[in-house]
Every structure is written in structure tokens, then in C-alpha cells.
């Protein structure tokens, strides 16, 4: 499997660390909504098809990437910095 890091280019999957389901939303730090915390910590989507995931390029630039991957074919449909709209400084 190859993942195209927006900074480093296409790299082998062994350079990356999977950091989980990218659909999870972390409650506000002070939130006491246990159900929301529970969902964030334990619930994972497990679709047979396109999946939104977080990967860290731990063997490269160490940026976190938002990767859409097809769980059946392992095709990588898109990659982007997980920082969302923010472009990491010095990397463009």
C-alpha cells in the first residue's frame, strides 16, 4: 500500500502509523457528557468501503494525514494534512 504524503510524496505504508478512525469528534475538554466521551474513545466506524482515517507519517515528516481509504481494495482515494484548513508552516 502506498500513501501519498502531501509533503513527502508517495511512500510505503511501513513509514506510517495508523492513528484511527478520522470521523471521531473529541468533546470539549471540560465536557462531562460521558456518552460523548464514550463514543469518542470507543466507537469506531468499520465500513466495507471508503473510510476516513488518520495516519501519521511517523517514518517521514511526522505530519498527521487525513486519508480516505477503501477498506476492501485498500485503494487510497485522497490524502491531506489533518490540520484541516491550516497549512503547516514551512510546508507548502
Amino acid at each position, binding site marked *: 500500500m*502506498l500513501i501519498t504524503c502531501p509533503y513527502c510524496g508517495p511512500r510505503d505504508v511501513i513509514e506510517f502509523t495508523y492513528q484511527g478512525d478520522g470521523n471521531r469528534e*473529541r468533546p470539549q*475538554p471540560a465536557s462531562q457528557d460521558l456518552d460523548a466521551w464514550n463514543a469518542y474513545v470507543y466507537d469506531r466506524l468499520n465500513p466495507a468501503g471508503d473510510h476516513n482515517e488518520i495516519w*501519521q507519517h511517523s517514518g517521514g515528516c511526522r*505530519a498527521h494525514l487525513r486519508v480516505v481509504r477503501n477498506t476492501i481494495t485498500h485503494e487510497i482515494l485522497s490524502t491531506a494534512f*489533518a*490540520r484541516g484548513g*491550516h497549512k503547516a508552516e514551512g510546508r507548502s
Partner: protein
Amino acid sequence: MSPRRTETGGRIDRLRTIRFTFDGAPYTGHIGDTLASALLANGVTLFGRSFKYHRPRGLLSAGVEEPNALVTVLSGEVREPNIPATMVEIYDGLVAVSQNRNPSLAWDIGAVNQLGGKILSAGFYYKTFMGPVFGPLKGTRFWMFCEHFIRRAAGLGKAGTAPDPARYERMNAFCDVLVVGSGPAGLMAAKAAADQGARVILAELEAHFGGSANWSGETIDGMLAADWAQRTVGQLEGNDNVRLLPRTTVWGYYDGNTLAALERVTDHKEVAAKGEPRQRYWAIRAGTVVLATGSFERPLVFPGNDRPGVMLAHAAERYAVEYGVLPGQRIALFTNNDSAYRSAVALKKAGAAVVAIIDVRGDVSTEMRRLASEAEAELLAGHAVVATEGGKALTGLKIQRFDAMSGALSGDERSIHADSLLMSGGWSPTIHLASQAGAKAEWDPARQAFLPPTPTQRWIGAGAFTGSFSTAEAIAEGRAAGLQAAGGAASSAPVPVVEAAPGDPDPAPVFEIKAKGKSFVDFQHDVTADDVRLAHREGFVSVEHLKRYTTLGMATDQGKNSNVPGLAIMAEALGKPIPEVGTTRFRPPYTAVSIGSLAAERFGDLKPERLTPMHDWHIANGARMYSAGLWYRPMIYGLPGETVEQAYVREARATRGSAGIVDVSTLGKIAVQGPDAAEFLDRVYTNTFSTLAVGKARYGLMLREDGLAFDDGTTWRLGEQEFLMTTTTANAGKVMQHLEYFLDVIWPELRVTVTSVTDEWAGAAIGGPNARAILASCVTGTAVDNATLPFMGIAHGQIAGVPVMICRLSFSGEMAFEVYSGAGYGTRVWEALIEAGKPFGLVTYGLEALGTMRIEKGHVTGAEIDGRTTARDLHLDWMLSKKKPFIGSAMMDREGLIAPDRLELVGLIALDNRPLSGGGHIVEQLDEANPHHSLGHITACCYSPALGKYIALALVKGGKARHGTRAFVSDPLRNRFGPIEIVSNHFYDPDGSRMHG
């Protein structure tokens, strides 16, 4: 001249003699021989004993699919078992032995198993070893009793126990076109793609490129096919875009057109060249793959089809043409298709007498009749072999009239005298890689074979792989595939002209001759046609269940010969057509892959090591090193004659008595910098860091998101916006990733950078009543008194002219200081401290003494922060801030995490004054015969010189409530039982007066 070697012919170098041994006996062969061809040339017919019945077995094939002739190659103390003799190239000094025989191949005691054939049928183990309901051998105990003897009798070669000294490499490779297989189709594909300028890799699992061209005897472009292949390889060699990989098996087809291959670099050499690995694991990323993997000839299933001397027809042809070896002098052939006729002619030309061609088909074409007469063979159309005769070699066979439509035998048996019986049951395309790559194979009723599925990845098939069994088709398809793979336009230029014997590629749909006797389907696992039918009678309908129950196709050859005949027999039993029964999916690896090649550089001399700056000093001063992850750390600095326990007790006692010094460079160190650094640490740690004064350090605890404890360490505030975080050695990488994740994904608004600086700093911890005096005598530029350097204070100064950062903190419980310097000056500072400590009797201490002193103090490490414990379990709840949220704060108070029966940290004292052991359980009532009701377990243990007792830390239900009570340690694994007292984990100096000074 060897008894079976032909006068001329073959690709062997007859002028060069190779000497080797098989089962201790010396043999000779020639360069170009495999172990199989060389032994066959020497008249050896018996190569091994079968898996279950210990039947004598000879060569079935000449290639990678060989199920019978498996050998163990010895090289010094190292054994490599289960290699097909057909794949071993001989070299001077090769030592090979046969397998699964006792005491010898010719006289095997296990052969009595043949008499018990009825008992040893499919499901033998499941049925026979269901023990009685009661009694000494009830349930599975009967099996446990018998297992030892069965394991000894059944099976293949034995793995060795000696460490493998060989080196293995991993190579990443990229290409536009990967061609797998170098027969006419593969060669044409590689040539066509290379001519288009594509980067091409051509992988061939055998030693020589050419595949069937090497033995077909056909003519391509007016020259012998073998010469044409050699010429084409020569053209490829001259092309810079082409990488040729002989002896390279592509064994796995993975996502994204990534393929795994194993190159046997030096297995065929007496001595490897300098720097050459034994094997090389290739990870190949290919734009397009051309699968030109050819096909396997299938055996026919009939009684006695496993007798030595019964061989696949093309294999015999190959031995004769490629190696100049005749498998016999009087040869009979048994076939359901046309291809065997060509083999008959080739063997006749090579000098054998072809006595008969037995064809299951009543109707044989005129062309085949002509080939039969060219071979001077009696053609017995509409006949079948019903028995074979002979012991360790074939002496003859029996045939009967056969009706291919009904499968019925009729008429009298007739005997034929022959020393070799060649069979051909049709051909199966080698679709393994395509199957691995995705979709299901499709049954072709004409070819009577599973053909490759529609590609789901970027591959193109060519030649026999696609069911196009003629060389002319292979060449045309190969060229088209190569052009297409390289993105070139289809060519109308003429393809090389092939002259070949005629033949219909479609066999008769006959797989089995049903007559009395054992008819083998899977030779390697001794599965017979009756076993398959028995499985059906016992209710196994699914092909996947059939496979597992009979173990058909589950041996090291993975059913390369047996798959289709087995399915055909199952289909007949079920009364269904073969495609409805379906086939099993092929999975990697295609052939056996050495574990060493997969480990490659992660093992042995290429494995990375992390050494602290003072490593050489430790070695030079007698440290016994201990590997912790990739790090090496001193365990003890033993004196001559000292045991490990004596050494650490001495080191710990001397530290508490005067002073000791330990290398702490391995601690994880992370620079946390930026305007929001303090805010970030407040969110990451359970306690508060924003209130920490510059020049002070604080002990911190991190939780995971789920509220369980994660890591601990001290963090030093070096500036308003600058912190140095330390982590445990083991968690340094994990903590770094944890911080990066939150900064990058969760809180991108925080202006903080984190940098791993573990390797930038050398660290030495010096502790004990005289530690301050030692420092005072060697540090310049700062005072080290209580006012300048209070507990958890930081000072900057120099030692031996080197700038150092000193923090007064303690893991040992003594007054202690951690001295950090630039890594390059670590040894210089360390040596200066050692020198300064001499008047005080300063000792160096290792991990054992470090551990002992931390157990005495009751500090936690990874043994207690084990991913299951909370801060409360470890009595660290005083560190949980109530004023701010932090990672894990929302989840840490969940019901299960605050339950009263959780395991809590306690101390243990052995009341019988014997050592305790990590992992031992704590029980209220001792029952050595039937241990039960564990209250918890020991996490760390030592002899405490401070207490003069064997002590331990443990996680025990009830925790503090049990302080002062007695219980027992129960460790049946190490047979350690005895009374203990449960106490506080703070054994030593609980109020901390020593470290606060």
C-alpha cells in the same frame, strides 16, 4: 558413465564433475544438475517416505511442484528441511539427507503403517483420539499420551535448533513492467516491453531462463527453442532498463500491485562471495504485471500411482532433454490428453524404449497415432492402468479396457513390464498469483481446468497461464502483453515462427481410475481418493471443509498437483459439476519462504542498536549489559566471583551508604517549546505545570484518553516558554506520538512545537548521602547547596569545562542529582564525576540496583503502569488536578475504574526469606495442587539490602486495606509457594527525609 545418463544432450556441463552426498553416500553429478537429476542419473529411485503411511516415494516432477522428493540440506549445524530435490542445484560439498524415515530410507520401521491403512483414513486423529468419558485417559488426555509417538512417525523434515548465521536482505524495487515467468511467453513479454523503453524486471524461479523452451525440443525462428531463449535473454541482458532475476520466486501478490519475491542468491554456491546475502527478499512495486507463470501437469489418480518410477510425463521429458537423464529404460505412458505423445517421442529420441502408450480415450487422433508409431510405442487406446508393481522401484503395471464416458473397466487385466510409468492428467494453469490478487478462478469445461479470473489489479496474462498451451500462442500473447503493459500500440509485425508437434489442448474429463488399491490424490499428505469420498459420506460438503478434514492440499506444496483431481473426485461424489463445487482461494506464499528473509535487516548484524554516550566506558569497566528495546544498559558492574544478586546488593548498599552513579541517558527527552507550552502541558499532564517556576522541575503523570495511566516522568521548566519533558525509556516514542497527535489533530491552535532530544543529552544520576559533596568538588559556575539547588531545583554550571544542567531529583530515595550534558561530552563528564567520587567510595550501579532502590521506595514503572491500572490504583490520585480538565479526566472516574475491588499497589515481604518472582499470584488460602482465587500478582521483586529481606511490589485486590495482613504467594509455574506479609509500597524512608536532606 552413470547408469541412466544419456550419451549426449542436456544443458549440463559434462566436463565438470560435482561431488556431493545424499544420506551419507557419495555421488557425483555435473554442473547444471539439480539434486533430483543427479540422483536419478545415479540410479536412485527412492527419495523419501510418505507423510502418513511411510510408503516409498520417488520423483513425481522436475520442478517446484515436487511433493515427494523433499530433502533436508545440512550446512554445518544448520538444517534447512523440506526443500524439493528438484529445486536444489548441486555444488561441491553439498550434504543432503532424506526425511521421515527411521532408521533409514531403504528400511523404514514406519512402513508398517501401510498395513493399518483403514485406520489411518481421513479424520483419523479426530476419531481415534476421542478418549473415554472417564478414567485416566479421559477426554483429550489419550491424545496427549499418543501425540509424542504420532508426531515422531508423521511429518516432514525436522527444523534445526542451531542459530542461522546466514545474512538476509530486503530490497525495494520499482518497475513499469514485472514479468513473472520466463518461458516463451514471459521472454516475449519482457522483450516487447523493454523494446518500448519500459523499466522491466523479469523473475524466474528456476536457475535458468527459458521455461519449457529449455526442454520442448521445438523450433522458434528456425532455431532450437532453447537457443532462441538464450538469444532472447542475451538481448535483455544488454538492455539497461531490464533487471533479470533468476532463482527468484514471486510468492505474493498484494494491494497496489506490490509483489513479494524471494531470490535465492547463494543457496547454489559452495562459498558465497563477500557481502552476498543467502537470500534476498524483494518488495516489487510494478506498474503492470505480466503473469506468464505457465501450467502444471496433473497426475492421474489410480491404484499405485505413487510408486517410485511413476512420474509426470513432461517431467521425464525434461529430465531426458534438459539434464540428459532417462527415468527408465522401458517406459510406459498413461494419459488422458495429447501432450504425453510428444513426451513419448522425446524419450524415444533420447534413447529409451517406449513400450506402450495407454490412453483413456477410445478415439485417438491420426496425428497422435503417428507420434505413437514414431516413438515405436504400442498404442492402447481405451485402456487404463489399474495397478502398479514393484517395491522401491517400478517393475510393471496392469491395464484393463476402460470406457472414458462411464469410467467402467472391463475385460481381463494385462501386465506390462516397465521400469517407468509416465502419466499425464491434463494441465492446470498456474493461477496462484492471480488468485491472490483478487477474483475467483473460472472453470473451463473444454480445458478441464481453472482459468485465471478477470483482473482486479493491473496484470495481464500470457501463455499457458491463460490456458493457451501451445508455444505459438504463448509467443503471440507474450508479445501482446508486453506491449500493452509498456503502453505501446499493438503490433502487426510477424511474431517468431514456431514449429511444434501437433496436439489438442483439451483432455478427456477423466481424473480417476476406480480400481482396488490406494489411489493417491495428494502425495505429500497421503490423501487418497477414498479419503475424499469418506469425507463426503461423513457430511463434508464445502470444499473448504473437505480441504481441512482430509488435509488435501495443505502440505508444503499447497496442492499444486492435487487441487483439481481432488475437486473432481469431490464433485463426482456430490453429483455436481466441478464449478458448483468451487475452488479454494490461493494465498501467499506460493512456495515456502524462509523466516530469515522476512526478518532481513531487522535481525542479526543489521539490526539497529541504541548505545548511550557512555556505552564504551561501561563495557571497559566490567558492566554486564542488558538489552531494553533497542537500548543497551548496564545491568550490574559485577566483581569477579559475584552473583547478580550479590552485585546489585553491594551497589545499592554502597549508594545508600555513601554515593552511587547510574547512566540515565536512555530516558526519553522531549523539548516542549512555544507560547502555549505551559497550557499544553496542563492539558497533557494530570497535574499543573503552568504554575511551575522557571528553574524548577515537577513530577508529572499522563493518562490515556480512556482514563488509565499512561506514563510518568519529570518535566523541567527551562524558560517561560521552554520545557524539557522526560519520559520512561520504554514509552519515549509513544509519548512523542501522543503529543504530536494532539498538537496536529486536536489542538492545532496551540502554538507549541515538540522535538525529540533524547539523543542530544547524556544523563548521569548521582545519589546518596555524599552525592552533594561529590558534586561540590567538581562543579564550577554554580553552587549546589540547598539554597541554590533545592529539591526539584535546576542549576547550570560546568564539569571538566563542559556546560551541564543539574536537576535535584531522586528515583533512588537518596539525595540525588541528574546531571545532563551534551551527548558528545557525556563520557568526559561521567569520568570527571567518577574521579570526584573516588574519595567518597562512589560506586557505579546498573539497572538491577536501580530497580532495587525504586522497589524499596515504592516508585512505579512500566511494570505497574501496565495499561490496566489507574492513578488511584497506584496511589497517585494526589496528582489528579481538580481545577482543570486534562487528557483522561472525563473518563477516569467511570464506575469500573473506581470500583472497590480493583487491584491496588502494595508491598510484599517474603516471610520465609526466599526470593519472590514476578508474575507470582497472591492468594488467601494456599492450595498447591489446585491453585485458585488469585488476589493479584507480583510486578517487581528483589532482595532489599535496606530491609534485609526479600520484598516485592504487587497489585492486589483491596490494596491498602490489607496492609499488615498475611497471605501467600502461589506461583505453580516456578513451584514457589510461601507466606508473605502485605505492607505499604513505601518500604524505605516513607517520609522522604533522606532525599529532602
